[in-house]
């Protein structure tokens, strides 16, 4: 599955006020809720926070990939955020995070999920890509970069 099938421009926001890990998960829930019929903001928040309780999704280098499974979700939804200031996230390398790729997925679809994680990891593992994401100053520029467009296509 292509990233552009998961991520839409209205779920991509730059320079978000992160404030705290909890606050950030609430922001994500608020963005995702209208995208999934029959699922509330509260359901999404619970799913994300329960996953964090099993271990932080801060995977290092300032990047976090909060995610959750939702029984009633009809399709996967992604959210991409950059933060105005890095926040503490209990990440594996103890570094604060400022790039967030959140993913809410239906219960099944294990193989698709692994492919999606690999596609995200490929971008986040590339310093030119993460530098460009951090520097993106509009929501649309951030979106275009992540789906593999923009000048020089650093995330392609």
């Amino acid at each position: 599955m292509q990233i552009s099938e998961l991520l839409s421009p209205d779920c991509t926001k730059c320079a978000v006020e992160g404030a705290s890990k909890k606050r950030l998960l609430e922001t994500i829930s608020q963005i995702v809720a209208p995208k999934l019929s029959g699922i509330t903001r509260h359901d999404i928040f619970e799913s994300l926070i329960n996953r964090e309780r099993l271990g932080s999704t801060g995977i290092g280098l300032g990047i976090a990939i909060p995610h959750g499974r939702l029984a009633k979700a009809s399709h996967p939804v992604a959210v991409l955020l950059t933060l105005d200031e890095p926040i503490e996230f209990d990440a594996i390398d103890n570094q604060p995070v400022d790039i967030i790729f959140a993913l809410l997925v239906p219960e099944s679809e294990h193989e698709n999920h692994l492919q999606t994680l690999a596609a995200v990891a490929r971008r986040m593992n590339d310093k030119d890509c993460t530098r460009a994401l951090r520097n993106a100053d509009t929501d649309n520029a951030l979106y275009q970069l992540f789906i593999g467009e923009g000048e020089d296509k650093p995330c392609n």
Partner: protein
Amino acid sequence: MTKACKTLVIQNKLGLHARAATKLAQLTQSFKSEITVQQGEQCVNAASVMCLMLLASQQGKSVEVCAEGDDAEDALVAVSELFEDRFEENE
């Protein structure tokens, strides 16, 4: 310096997803040895969650795990146990 390698099979249902990859990276970081995971042509540093996720290893996949360093043998035993234990997952 000792180098030890072993072929291991991903046994948990969800494969090498984020949480499993994080457990493997944390275990790797607790040893002095460099640990790599090779799947087909791709060979990655096991200390990096990001790199491990690049593999998109599903249940049933075989990977070659190598440890190189003074505690390579112990590291390989510990990593083997984590795989056998399905990354501490139920299925």
